[in-house]
């Protein structure tokens, strides 16, 4: 792609990534959450692939690193679900405790980030999985359609 496109994408990439991470982290008090933030992040990766070409992106960003990130996100999610097994599966065992443990008041309130218990952590797990997964899909499809073989 031309120099204008590459320069603008270099400027915009940190903004897109930070916006995606913001959506993931604030999922419990504003619209968003794991999947939405991860999809925004992956759209940033797609922008890099379009601007710089899939061959040069593949030298830095390997597909099996993304696969490890994806598995880590899924394990965080399921591990937290198992964590409440003393009472029941998926029990919110962090509500009221030290980590993300404030109880929000009922009704309309100014949103407090440090609430929600297990939910923000599960959002982070899902977000990691989605950003790893969707970036891997976009990268592999770009490589496949330009004829480059994906290394195992």
């Amino acid at each position, binding site marked *: 792609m031309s120099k204008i496109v590459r320069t603008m994408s270099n400027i915009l990439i940190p903004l897109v990534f930070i916006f995606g991470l913001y959506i993931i982290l604030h999922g419990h008090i504003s619209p968003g959450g794991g*999947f939405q933030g991860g999809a925004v992040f992956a759209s940033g990766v797609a922008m890099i692939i379009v601007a710089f070409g899939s061959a040069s992106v593949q030298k830095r960003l390997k597909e099996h690193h993304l696969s490890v990130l994806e598995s880590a996100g899924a394990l965080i999610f399921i591990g937290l679900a198992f964590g409440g097994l003393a009472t029941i599966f998926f029990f919110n065992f962090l509500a009221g405790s030290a980590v993300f443990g404030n109880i*929000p008041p009922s009704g309309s*309130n*100014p*949103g407090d980030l440090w609430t929600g218990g297990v939910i923000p952590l599960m959002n982070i797990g899902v977000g990691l999985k989605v950003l790893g997964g*969707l970036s891997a899909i976009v990268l592999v*499809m770009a490589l496949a359609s330009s004829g480059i073989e994906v290394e195992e």
Partner: protein
Amino acid sequence: MTVGLPFNIPFLAVAALISISFIIILTQRNLIKLVMGIVIMQAGVNLFLVSLGYRTGGIVPIFTHAPEGAMVLPVPQALTLTSIVIGVACTALMLSLIVLTYRHTGDTDAEKSRILKG
């Protein structure tokens, strides 16, 4: 269950989208256009689910700095979100299989690239 708009416009849109997508799926021979038809059908069903939850004069179902008033139902929005995620996964799988089929047979036409018959 009132929608508050004349002639139930969202549900007419759902009917139009799903009918168009059925015609596409049944008649198109190019595999990529077939996948487009399925994506349009997913969009139609998602629109149906979201518009089920609407209540007249309702506000966004978020408690952060919420104004006064009754809220729209949030459960259909959660169902729609799950459906969108599943749709993305299905579409990615279908497109990958089309790329592989093209590598084997050199054609994305459903009739010309058939190997299994009988």
